[in-house]
């Protein structure tokens, strides 16, 4: 019997499982193949929803689903935390057991590490996980005017466009609450422009200017002085704030680091086309967990899952795998309370954002509800 172990029950892991099952259904039924999905929590969170949750537009209940409801019943679901991937012996060790595999899919995602910036946990907020989003929602509800700093504290981070989106929505949120005149909005970015991709900068920067949103570039925070409410940078600058919304530094999963499978950031070295883990014939990696020069985005995980499922199915059938990932990403960009644009790009095509519209915003709002169909492998 061939054993496929998928590690991680986020978008990447769930979709890979749900795309793989129908391709090899007969073999699973005949017990020639077993698919096991291991995840350390029994639910999945729709992280893009945090952007709306902090403004009270989506509730926590809308962002969570039990994995049991999402994953194909033909998959053996194990809720347990992996502590070590023993690649030499093709085995995943968990807190409560161990799982031998013929093929391993690494989909352990990324996580924020606010503790890497001293003072950030005490002095700042973020919306990149549930606890952070819950706390920020409260802080925003109580905000009565002052200076808000939205600061990207490291690259790479999840959803590269989210810092711009939150800044735009904040602008409208403050206007709707009659606080915009009493507030200052400052967006900061680590490199010499407000975003990594020039076509996006060309669209967004004038929109920041029109809205009186300030920005600073080459801004790399090294410390937050929580007492005096100041951000201090490596470049020797300081910015005061009343409310700090940080995009904290990110790292790969601890199990990747502990297993010696990651680079310095804990990202898994992965072939950009085949999605095989460098140096291992029986291991694929996808989603946020990889070191690839693509966005850490759910859409990327989605397109990659199609490739990994196709190649795994081929290998199981004894066919040469030929599917390739071409770097495709799709991101909505909310540019206000009720308008949005979107970009798509791949390894060979730069993004070309369209003019923001209400229509694109409503499509995004609809997708926020429809996401669970994607997770089930239906959309």
């Amino acid at each position, binding site marked *: 019997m061939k054993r496929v172990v998928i590690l991680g029950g986020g978008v990447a892991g769930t979709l890979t499982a749900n795309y793989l099952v129908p391709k090899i259904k007969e073999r699973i039924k005949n017990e020639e193949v077993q698919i096991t999905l291991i995840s350390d929590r029994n639910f999945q969170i729709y992280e893009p929803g945090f952007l709306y949750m902090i403004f009270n537009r989506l509730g926590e209940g809308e962002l969570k689903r039990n994995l049991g409801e999402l994953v194909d019943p033909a998959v053996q679901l194990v809720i347990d935390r992996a502590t070590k991937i023993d690649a030499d012996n093709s085995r995943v060790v968990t807190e409560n057991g161990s799982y031998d595999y013929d093929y391993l899919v690494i989909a352990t995602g990324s996580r924020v590490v606010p503790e890497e910036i001293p003072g950030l946990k005490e002095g700042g907020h973020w919306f990149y996980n549930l606890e952070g989003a819950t706390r920020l929602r409260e802080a925003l509800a109580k905000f009565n005017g002052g200076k808000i700093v939205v600061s990207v504290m*490291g*690259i790479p981070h999840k959803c590269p466009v989210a810092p711009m989106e939150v800044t735009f929505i904040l602008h409208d949120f403050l206007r709707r609450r009659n606080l915009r005149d009493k507030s200052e909005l400052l967006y900061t970015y*680590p*490199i*010499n422009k407000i975003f*990594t991709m020039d076509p996006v900068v060309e669209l967004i920067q004038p929109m920041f200017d029109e809205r009186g949103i300030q920005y600073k570039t*080459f801004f*790399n925070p*090294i410390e937050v002085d929580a007492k005096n409410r100041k951000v201090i940078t*490596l*470049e*020797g600058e300081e910015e005061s704030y009343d409310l700090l919304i940080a995009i904290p530094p990110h790292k790969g999963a601890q199990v990747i680091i502990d297993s010696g499978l990651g680079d*310095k950031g804990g990202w898994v070295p992965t072939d950009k086309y085949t999605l095989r883990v460098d140096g291992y014939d029986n291991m694929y990696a996808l989603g946020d967990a990889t070191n690839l*020069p693509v966005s850490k985005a759910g859409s990327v995980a989605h397109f990659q899952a199609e490739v990994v499922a196709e190649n795994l199915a081929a290998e199981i059938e004894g066919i040469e795998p030929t599917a390739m990932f071409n770097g495709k990403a799709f991101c909505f960009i909310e540019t206000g309370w009720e308008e949005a644009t979107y970009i798509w790009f791949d390894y060979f095509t730069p993004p070309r954002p369209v003019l923001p519209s209400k229509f694109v915003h409503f499509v995004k709002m609809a997708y926020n509800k429809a996401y669970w169909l994607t997770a089930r492998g239906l959309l």
Partner: protein
Amino acid sequence: MEVKADRVVDARGSYCPGPLMELIKAIREEDVGKIIEVWSSDESSAKDIPEWVKKAGHELVGVFEADGYWRIVVKKTR
């Protein structure tokens, strides 16, 4: 002028802004006076990194072209 680096950051194969972010990490970790050399195969690094070094107040020792990549040498001065 060639100087011996205390630390070499090989960021070849990574794209903008990868090499710059790698240098920033190294600068945070090293002591004042240390020389850090970044290798990048992304041409824009040869322009962006010196720009950042100037803004951050460190010293650009030099930008050297090697076989298919750039070596950008920086001294941490503060």
